[in-house]
Every structure is written in C-alpha cells, then in structure tokens.
C-alpha cells in the first residue's frame, strides 16, 4: 500500500512538472508570435501592400520581399528534390539489400547529422563554390545552396525513412516472401506505399529545417536579391537577409526584418500542419 501511494505521489508530481514545461513551451512560442506581430503591425499597415514586389532597397524605403520568399522556397525545394529520393533509396537498400552494413552506415549517418551547419557552409564556400565557379561563374548560387542543404538534411531524412520502414509489420515481408514476390516488386508495391505517409511527413519536417537554415546558406548562395533564371544564379533567402542586415538595421528597415521573420514562421506553420495531416491519414489507414 505504501509503495503504491508513494508512486502515485511521484506520478502526480511528474504530471504537474510536465504540464508546467508544456505550458512554458506554449508561452514562449506565443511570446515570439506576439512580439513579431506587435513589432510588425505599424509597418504592415504602411508597407504591407508593397511587400509582394521584388525590389529590396531598404536605404530607399523599398521593402519588396517576393524575390527572397521565392529564394527561400526554391533553395529548399531543390534541396529536398536532391536529398529526398536519395534518402529513401538508400534507406530501402540498406534495410532490404545490404542488412550487414546497415548498422555501421547508420552510425556514420547519425554522426553526419550532428555536424554543425556552419561546417557544411564552410565546406561549401571553400570547396563547392570554387568548383562550380570553374564551369559556371560566379559559383555562389541557387545550386550551391541547395547542394549544401541537401547534404545537411540527408542524414535525418535517411534515419526517418529507416524508422518508417522498420515500423512496418513483419507479416508484410513474410506474406510477400510466401508469395515469392521479388524484393524490388515488394518494395515498390507494398513496403514503400505503406511507409509512404510517414516518410513524406518526415521529409516535410526536413523541408522546414532547410527553410530555416541560415549560416550555411548565407555562405554559399551569393545573396543577390533576384528571381534566379538558372541554377547558377545567386539568390538570397529570407533567413540570410535577416542575418546579413539585422546588426546594422535601424527604424523601418529593422521592422521589415521582423516581418520577414513572421513570414518564415507562417510558412513553417503551414508545413507543420501539412505534416500532421499526412501522419493522421496514415493512422486511419493502419
């Protein structure tokens, strides 16, 4: 009796502690949104309609952000297009075709996931950009930024895919073997479609991470405010813009940077909801 009652006490203590930390997380997020909104409100009233133009010349009170929103989205989309299929194929290959090396490779990938993003940026700046520069100057470009981001999100995308495949019921595999399906056919028709929603929702989260990455992109993207006409054109993302100009911005310019933060938050929220929806559908199917 004594043990149960003391356990109950510990449980209720833990539950209150969890509620407190949960509330703190919500409050902090709410605080960030509130500060961004309050800081941005007067600016949005005055310049809100001009935000959708392309010319960003804060010195002349022109705050068009369309080209930078496009820059953020384009860089992240290309990174996902490169890293996504690679992660899925690699994870499937490791799990079903090369189970012997799966553990060591995954350990290596986990290590890769822990490398700070600035290190990827430095590598991009000193190796990748000069290399691209040799055949398509100036080198710092949409492509360079997407390649660096792809390398950054690949490890976690791979781990998420591996987990999603691992959570599939073993009977799928057994049933497939009993029907003497080929491994490729089983993967294509049964396993990948079943794990699909979980994989896609993991990739959407990685997309959000790519969208928020700042320093690595800043170092390799060239940061020219424009719509790129080719993969080799420089682009500027919203995050790079904040990092480049925040320290020296005053007045409306500073507020404009807060607004770009708000825009990023909005895009990330939409992505998160998309990811929830995908996961929800999977639960209904299971």
């Amino acid at each position, binding site marked *: 009796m004594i043990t149960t009652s003391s356990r109950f006490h510990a449980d209720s203590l833990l539950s209150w502690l969890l509620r407190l930390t949960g509330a703190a997380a919500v409050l902090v997020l709410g605080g960030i949104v509130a500060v961004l909104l309050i800081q941005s409100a007067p600016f949005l009233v005055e310049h809100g309609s001009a935000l959708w133009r392309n010319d960003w010349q804060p010195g002349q009170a022109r705050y068009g952000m369309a080209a930078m929103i496009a820059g953020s989205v384009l860089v992240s989309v290309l990174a996902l297009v490169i890293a996504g299929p690679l992660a899925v194929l690699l994870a499937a290959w490791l799990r079903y075709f090369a189970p012997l090396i799966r553990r060591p490779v995954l350990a290596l990938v986990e290590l890769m996931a822990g490398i700070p993003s600035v290190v990827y940026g430095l590598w991009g700046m000193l190796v990748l950009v000069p290399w691209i*520069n040799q055949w398509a100057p100036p080198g*710092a470009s949409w492509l360079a930024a997407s390649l660096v981001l792809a390398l950054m999100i690949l490890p976690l995308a791979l781990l998420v895919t591996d987990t999603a495949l691992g959570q599939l019921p073993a009977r799928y595999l057994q049933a497939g073997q009993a029907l003497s399906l080929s491994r490729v056919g089983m993967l294509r028709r049964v396993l990948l479609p079943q794990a699909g929603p979980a994989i896609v929702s993991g990739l959407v989260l990685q997309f959000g991470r790519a969208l928020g990455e700042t320093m690595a992109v800043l170092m390799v993207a060239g940061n020219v405010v424009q719509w790129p006409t080719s993969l080799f054109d420089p682009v500027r993302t919203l995050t790079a813009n904040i990092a480049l*100009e925040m320290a020296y*911005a005053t007045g409306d310019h500073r507020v404009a940077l807060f607004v770009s933060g708000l825009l990023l938050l909005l895009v990330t929220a939409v992505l998160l909801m998309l990811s929830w929806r995908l996961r929800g559908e999977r639960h209904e199917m299971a």
Partner: protein
Amino acid sequence: MLGKTLKGFLLVWLLSGCQPAEDKLVITGSSTISPLMAELAEQFEAQSGIQVDVQSGGSGRGISDARQGLADFGMVSRALKTDEQDLTAHLIGRDGIAMIVNAANPVTALSNAEIVAIYTGEQQNWSSLGGNDAAITVVHKADGRSTQELFLAHFGLNNDQVQPDMVIGENQQGIKAVANDVNAIGYVSIGTAIYEADAGAPLRLLPLSGVPATLESVDQGRYPLSRELNLVSQGELSETASQLLDFMTDPDRAATYHDYYFLPVSR
C-alpha cells in the same frame, strides 16, 4: 543562496549610484565607432574605475550631443565640416576601404570610372580592362554596412544601380570570395585586406587614383577611400576625459583597433 546574490546585486547597484558625477563619462554618436568605443570603454573602466556610458545614434547625434553638453565626447566618423568648427576634433583612428582582386588577375590598376562601370554592370568582362577574357564576379556588401555606405558615397552610386554577382556581410567573407575566384573584384576594410594579404591570402590591393592602398598612405591622409574617426568635444577637456583620450591613443590599444578593422592613429 538566492538572497545572498540579491543582496550582492543591491549593494553593487547602490554603490554605483553613489559615484560622484565627474567619475562618469558619456559618449554618444556614430554607429561605426561605437562597437570599438564600447570595447575600449570597458578596458578603460577596468583599469581606472571610471564609468563610461557609450550610446550609438549616428554622427549627427554625436555632434549635437557634444554641442549641448549632453555628452563629454561625440563620436563622428568623418572630418568636421566648416560649420562645426566650434567643436574640437580628436582624431582616434581611421577607417578605409581597399578594392581587392585575386592575385592571379593580371589587372593591376583601375580608374574610378572603370570601377563604376564594373559595379553598374556596364563592363562585364575583364578583357577590355587589360585582363583575361572572363566574366567579372562583382562582390558587393549588404545594406546598412558602413563600408558599403562609404564605397557608394565615394563613387557617387546609389545602391539600386549596383549589379552584384555576390552580396556578402563580413569582411572575411569578401576576402574568401575574392581569394577563391580569379575573376572576382570586391572591397573590404583596408585593415583587413592588408592583414590577410600579408598572411598569405592570394589578394591584390588596387591603388585608387594612383595612391597605393597601404597603411602609410591612409595614415598620411592621402588615400582617397578613407575617413577619419573622431571624438569631438566642446570647450576644455575634464581630467577624466583627457585620461580616456590618452588611453585610446596609446599604442597598446592597436590590437583592439585591429579587431574592429580600424587603423589607430600613429603618435
């Protein structure tokens, strides 16, 4: 534990409030100088115990605060104009910009008109400037940086006329961009450029209007793309104020100036 810390804070707060007024200096003005000033003020406080309050707000504020006696010194990142001669300027250092190209680029000099043509996109190939037949990579600085403002003002450009291929933030990023690209041209703080070139980075500093980009020419005031960093004051300096001035122009402070890419005045 918590009570003790609180009491400690309270004591410090009370003591700092009790300091006599003449043991505190107020310095306001240029946002270019204020990071350096804040760092030097901290060192000065640690050494002398005299409290220094540094606030940025632009050279204009430095002038008006010094005039109205709101500040002991105003920070002004240019020479005094003719209608500001009622104030005394104390030169504490200089800030300059060097045009840099890769050391493998055969071009050794560019005229001002050529630099303007390159930055506005009229001139996109090195060949007609005496260089290789290759596209020019134009490296420009982000908005709000004082280096960018000085550069634009010197060449009479508006920022929207500039057609960059790469926009950078820190001086170091500009150095890397030009060192890694044979066909790049950029501009960075002259202190950084000289330091990096001496340390072996493959850079060439271009002379401007025939004046070589060296510390000597900046020091002599001959180098065109440079400006004075001044502390301005009105009337007689108080004893603590001249103490701070001596501290700032001491050759031992050179390393701190270098950290902020400024050149100390030579004495």
